[in-house]
């Protein structure tokens, strides 16, 4: 089953959160999400405070997130915070530390507490 609906829900949650829209208004980034076990590739694009999602390869990637489908699914649906799999080495993130931190903060602001 494709993960696209999960990423679409994630984008929708970001876009409906006024605080996140303001935080991300100057954050233009392309994030690629790869499942290491299924070999599938998805993307999130942040621009002008809004986030879009899609499937397949994209150019000019700023942040790359890799992990098993189960973990990726759990992280982007709010069942698991990214910190735990990241610290355990089950979630590999390539890119600038600031962008990684921002992605963490976005997930926590959507699902934290």
């Amino acid at each position, binding site marked *: 089953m494709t993960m696209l609906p999960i990423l679409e829900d994630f984008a929708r949650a970001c876009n409906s959160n006024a605080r996140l829209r303001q935080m991300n208004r100057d954050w233009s980034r392309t994030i690629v999400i790869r499942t290491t076990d299924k070999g599938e590739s998805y993307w999130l694009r942040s621009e002008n405070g809004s986030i879009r999602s899609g499937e397949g390869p994209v150019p000019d990637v700023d942040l790359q997130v890799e992990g098993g489908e189960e973990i990726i699914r759990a992280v982007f649906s709010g069942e698991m915070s990214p*910190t735990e799999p990241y*610290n355990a080495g089950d979630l590999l993130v390539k890119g600038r530390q600031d962008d990684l931190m921002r992605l*963490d903060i976005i997930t926590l602001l959507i699902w934290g507490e």
Partner: protein
Amino acid sequence: MKQVVSVSLGSTTRDHETTVELYHQEIHVSRRGTDGDMERAMVMLRDLDNQVDAIGLGGIDRYLVVNGQRYEILDAKRLAECATITPVVDGSGVKAVWEYRVINHLIEDKIIGPHQKVLLVSALDRFGMAQAFYEQGFPTIAGDLIFSSHIDYPVTSLAELQKLARRLLPEMAKMPFTMLYPTGREQEQQSHDSTYHHYFAEADIVAGDFHFIRHHLPDHLAGKLIITNTTTEEDRRLLKDRGLSILITTTPVLAGRSFGTNVIEAAIVAATGVLPDDERWENTVLGAGLHYSITRLDSSSGIENQGEPTS
């Protein structure tokens, strides 16, 4: 003489030692940096265990205390647990009790007032100070997301700060500390990025962690007042060169520098044997004779005044 050592993840260039007097006792304190090297800090802590009266943990917070809720930074816990006999403290107990009161003392002493705009570069590590500013009606921006994560989102109310803390801190406390705060040589670097300088320009008072302040320091600080601590002579020269009017440190200036709260906390523990989780802690801190220090940097004399010690 009792001995206190502060093991810091900060730069070795800020190492120093001196003697302080607390509760009528002379206490030798020394600060030993490890340039951000966690392993070195762990070795140092194990070596010092049972050799000194109290150990301060510098350049890292073990506890972030927000509205009575305590969040423990995992990396700091690992460090503190290297010493099993000698108490290890991080300064959060002094910050929680003392910094709230310092702001109120400064208002009572008519040094600051709620007509002034405040930029608190980091509020989650000094919630007491943030609480005092918001409660007293100062228009205050908490810049935690701006200065530690480069997310241009100013927090402007105590309620929002508390909400952010509840959502972010339980997970962020598990992150590698280097992702949250500059350590080692990184502390000495100054950013040439002026993106956030407007927050300084709009503020009358800049407060909070000095490493964040210095990292983002704009060229012009004329007419402004900074409230912070852990400043050295060199820092004072830098601030004077940038035109700062008044520097207030929440802890006393001794031997040319204001000590980190972890040093003060370790000295209090060494002198009294009272630990921060003891119910006597608040009164113990308030009875330690702490006082803020004021340095007027815009006068040619550079005259230093000090607030009255508490008793």
